[in-house]
């Protein structure tokens, strides 16, 4: 059963909502830059850390 989940592109940092089905692995691509480095955003953001990036 597909559900709406948030994804993050690790190439252009674009965030978007898309279908996610735990039982079916599908090829993902960022709608903005076309990269396949698309990560399903963790549901519990508290477990993740913030990272300093050069130039920010």
């Amino acid at each position, binding site marked *: 059963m597909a559900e709406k989940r948030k994804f993050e592109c*690790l*190439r252009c940092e674009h965030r978007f909502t898309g279908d996610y089905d735990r039982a079916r692995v599908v*090829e*993902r691509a960022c709608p903005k*830059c076309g990269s396949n480095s698309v990560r399903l955003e963790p549901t519990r953001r508290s477990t993740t850390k913030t*990272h300093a*990036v*050069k130039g920010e």
Partner: protein
Amino acid sequence: MDVGRHPRIKTLVNSEVEDVSGFVGNFRARIRRHPRYVVAADCTACDECAKVCPISVPDEYQQGFSSRKAIYLPFPQAVPSAYVLDMENCLGNEPIACGKCLEVCDKKCIDFDDQGEMLDVPVGSIVVATGMQVYDPRQNDEYGYTRFENVITSMEFERLICAGGPAAGELSRPTDRRVPRSIGWVQCVGSRSTTRGVSYCSNVCCMNTVKQTLQVYEHHPETSNTVFYMDIRAFGKGFEDLYRRSRENGTRYVRGLPGLVQEDPETHDLIVQVENTTTGKLETHRLEMLVLAVGMVPHRGNGKRTVDEILNLSHTSDGFVMESHPKLKPVDAPTRGIFFAGCVEAPKDVKDSVTQASAAAARANNLLGAGKVQVEAITARLDTAQCILCGLCTRVCPVHAITETDKKQKVYPSIIEAACAGCGTCAAECPADSIAMRHFSDAQILAQVDAILTDDPMSKVVAFACNWCSYAGGDNAGTSRLQHPACVRLIRTMCSGRVDEKFIWHAFRQGAPLVLVSGCHFSDCHYIDAVTWTQKRVEKVWNRMDKLGIRPQRLQLEWISAAEGQKFARVMSELQGLLARVTPEEVEETRRILEKQPPVPGRARKPAMAAAD
């Protein structure tokens, strides 16, 4: 017919393959023979049984234009030439019900007690030729199929005009059984559409329509023919000549597909509105019959399990099975010993199907004629001493080359080398490092990572590229003389599924600022679905990086096919941009974090078998 008479070919009709196990040279097929209720060897096809049968149902072979009895010969050239009983429609053999066929059969070959049987057949190789289905045009309601009787499909028209058809080749339209004075054909019904039907060209419809217009001209030269089309694809030998003949015979080709079809309620003629894109004008055509040139869609079998499931076949995005290599192994399945013939692989005409079937037969014959199978040099091997009986290897193996594990009974998995395709997904997934690869071993890959990062690691991107697609995509970029940054260092693996988590972590430990994992697109994976495990694994590493305080952006994932040289060059340029954002301090911090972690963070330490490589 030749096949039916051949002494060394055994045909199992009315049968269904339920399961296939084993590997190249040693397959075992479980086949269910459905009951025929007629002993085929004794039946002489005398037709006496059908004459007395009181049941009439639509004849599927004649597309429902005529009827057949409950006991019938499927079609005149059926092999074997024997009757079959349709038990769903038969009244049965109870004396009070019917049993008339039983009474008149001199040969006594009708057997109402036939239960069918299960057959276990050992086979060395398998040719999959399950064909295709035609598109159901009811989805394109604007054409009025099933609403208007005189709108028929190209398959139905084929039966109407065929000498062996219900009207013995005397063409007539369904509503009034008279010869139509005007016929229209609508091309690409269900094909080449991104909204309804399928996006690919069904290959045969154009020439089938051209042939049908010529047939109509031969039978009834006074009938006017009009073809509505997007573009005519007459690319085969002699096809352009046929197309020219069709036009010379008076068939009018209108470039444009009808937007609306209506019926005159009195005459049942069809009023077709179409924009002629050549003239740019809206035209209205009054036709007595309209034929929809329906496309082909993949056929997955009628049983409980599809042929994909039974034989573990992968398929392309259009739904047809995927060959091992489109140029070098066009009739081979990714699983050795399995071959394709006909429309199961892609839409094709009879000539191409016969060509492919001949190739598949030759490939199978080569395999069986050799008497022995030369296994791949790149295979997996298992060290049971380290195996923790988790069964993960069996689950991830795309070619089912690893036998089942039983933790309770302490049954270790074993690798069938003849079936192993050497993708390395099992070795990458094994949490106990109990599986090693022959070639592309852990030690070899880790040594390449070390070599890349020995000198000036901050200027390098460590990229793992699969042999079949991404690495070939790099070759394509090179041979096309495409400019791309030189910062990326490729490490070739047979499949991206081979990229173990520990390779990625090792690269970061050694000071890699950026790592790329690259493989085939999901629909191109040469190891069926091994690429899906790559995505899951990379996802896992991203999450772990996040938890450890390492930016997940430093691990990139990309699917690049062998034809995508431009994409390869573009991705490499983008990686150079990402590389510039990684500082030496960040890399040093990553190394410091990973020093406190096991080789694969989040996984308990296990003695590495790879050390012995």
